[in-house]
């Protein structure tokens, strides 16, 4: 029976079986992005704790030591505040060579002005990293790839790296057969799919079946600008620059400073040339760059992003983790990879590799993420309303700027924006905070005050001369 037939069988709920790992069990992990490497790391760690002797083959054709697309897993490269803390609690510290820059603040750019939101603790807890070894043609520096570092951790725990492209995963006599492009073939007690959403493998699995639905995806855009360390320090500083612009289909846009480069990330629905043109020609974006000119980029890609979970994401002896399963909507995808990878590792070590084990112990983590994404859609809906209304933008700007000026006062809007941009809190948590009467009261007051005739006359000189603008 093929894997896809099996996935279909699961969705019809026809008696999945339970099975557990034994000494000598072999596990295939397909893909060594954050999900695959962290899964292997935690699996081997937990197996060691319960004296279980298992073997892990980690399939990954990419070399993370390469610069440019060949070594890169294409993302903005922000490791969220919550993930940095959780990894540190696990004993995983990001080495200096991996962290290109510690982010200290977010600068929100809108047509009505800019405001810098500083980290609540005056501490660098957000890391800007490269997934590979830096942009195309970059100088070889003492940088280190984030994905490469996680892969090393997995290898140190005992995972065996198999540098091959997997082309097929199918069920053979109650084991999972993994085949590769070069005809390599082996059988395993468990197959873990961690290929992300930019792989042909998940696509081909769906094409074969009407039961299995691969994750929903949309096209995004990333590029790198070479500006040099000094220019970046003087223009961008240790701040991530986020844009709230009235551009249809654009959900999130950010400029992320790293070493000698600045990474631009555009997320939304099917990012295309027209949207990019609108973005690059907006004064808010141009004014971020030296002399108000957007330079040409040195490296770019159009990776896809997961916007809807795979269904189902597990079956007997098979589980999908990270982006190939479930992830957070537009935020903290690496954090979601950590969560799903660890939940899957816990399930197979302490419970079993059957569909019912995954249903009972793995699915709750996926469901929690998906449920939070539903709230996230509402939050992004509100964001779009603000994006469309200058009236609302003035209120948001005024409230945030006043909070930033008043060091000891409450910072309700700043905290909501901080957690939304950094992905540090769940969408549900952020949403509930916006329902607090004090938040609503303050926002209403700032909407009135920010749009009053006196504020308008003070604000009426165009961008950069807002009374509420915080210089940086």
């Amino acid at each position: 029976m093929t894997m896809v037939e099996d996935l279909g069988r699961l969705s019809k709920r026809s008696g999945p079986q339970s099975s557990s790992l034994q000494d000598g069990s072999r596990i295939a992990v397909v893909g060594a992005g954050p999900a695959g490497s962290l899964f292997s790391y935690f699996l081997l760690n937990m197996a060691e704790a319960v004296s279980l002797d298992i073997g892990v083959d980690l399939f990954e054709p990419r070399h993370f030591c390469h610069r440019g697309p060949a070594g890169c897993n294409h993302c903005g490269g922000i490791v969220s505040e919550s993930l940095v803390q959780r990894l540190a609690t696990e004993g995983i510290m990001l080495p200096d060579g991996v962290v290109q820059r510690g982010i200290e603040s977010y600068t929100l750019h809108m047509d009505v002005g800019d405001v810098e939101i500083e980290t609540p603790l005056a501490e660098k807890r957000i890391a800007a990293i490269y997934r590979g070894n830096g942009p195309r043609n970059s100088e070889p520096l003492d940088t280190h790839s984030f994905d490469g570092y996680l892969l090393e951790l997995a290898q140190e725990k005992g995972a065996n790296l198999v540098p091959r492209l997997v082309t097929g995963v199918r069920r053979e006599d109650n084991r999972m057969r993994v085949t590769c492009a070069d005809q390599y073939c082996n059988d395993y007690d468990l197959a873990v799919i961690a290929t992300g959403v930019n792989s042909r493998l998940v696509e081909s699995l769906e094409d074969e079946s009407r039961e299995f639905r691969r994750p929903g995806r949309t096209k995004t855009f990333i590029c790198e600008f070479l500006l040099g360390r000094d220019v970046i320090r003087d223009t961008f500083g240790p701040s991530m620059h986020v844009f709230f612009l009235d551009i249809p289909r654009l959900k999130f846009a950010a400029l992320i400073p790293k070493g000698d480069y600045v990474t631009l990330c555009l997320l939304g629905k099917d990012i295309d040339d027209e949207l990019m043109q609108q973005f690059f020609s907006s004064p808010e974006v141009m004014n971020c760059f030296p002399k108000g000119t957007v330079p040409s980029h040195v490296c770019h890609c159009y990776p896809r992003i997961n916007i809807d979970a795979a269904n189902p994401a597990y079956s007997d002896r098979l589980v999908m983790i990270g982006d190939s399963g479930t992830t957070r909507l537009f935020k903290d995808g690496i954090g979601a990879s950590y969560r799903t990878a660890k939940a899957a590792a816990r399930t197979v070590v302490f419970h079993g590799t059957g569909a019912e084990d995954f249903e009972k112990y793995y699915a709750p983590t996926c469901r929690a993420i998906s449920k939070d994404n539903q709230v996230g859609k509402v939050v992004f809906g509100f964001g779009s309303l603000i994006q469309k209304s200058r009236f609302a933008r003035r209120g948001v700007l005024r409230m945030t700027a006043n909070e930033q000026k008043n060091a000891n006062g409450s910072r309700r809007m700043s905290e909501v924006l901080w957690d939304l941009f950094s992905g540090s809190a769940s969408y549900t948590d952020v949403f509930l905070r916006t329902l607090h009467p004090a938040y609503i009261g303050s926002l209403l007051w700032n909407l009135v005050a920010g749009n009053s005739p006196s504020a308008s006359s003070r604000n009426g000189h165009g961008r950069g001369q807002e009374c509420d603008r915080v210089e940086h």
Partner: protein
Amino acid sequence: MARLGKQYSDGDVIFREGDTGTCMFVIQKGEVEVFVESDGHELILRKIGANDFFGEMALFEHETRTASARAVGPTHVLTIDKKNFLAGVHEDPSLAFRIVKTMSHRIRNLTDRLAKYEEDI
């Protein structure tokens, strides 16, 4: 290349005995001394280095800090919020495993020291 956390210079106090704590700390680089003061004397409880954590009792109790901590040489320290930690443990109890293991080592250490102290007197 960059380092995460907050930077402290040699001798900087990170927190003091009696402070109310809502977070623990993980050392990114450098060393930290945990100490108590009594009758004007300082007793160093332990000296810890990179990847070690301290101040973890604040995550589990509402009490004030029972000891002080200060940097030994240039040190980078990352703060772990109580809320983030407890949310993580709620979803994944094994997140607390490393802390429980270290706390168990520390209790064992203190018990040994206490036994030795009782023998000496």
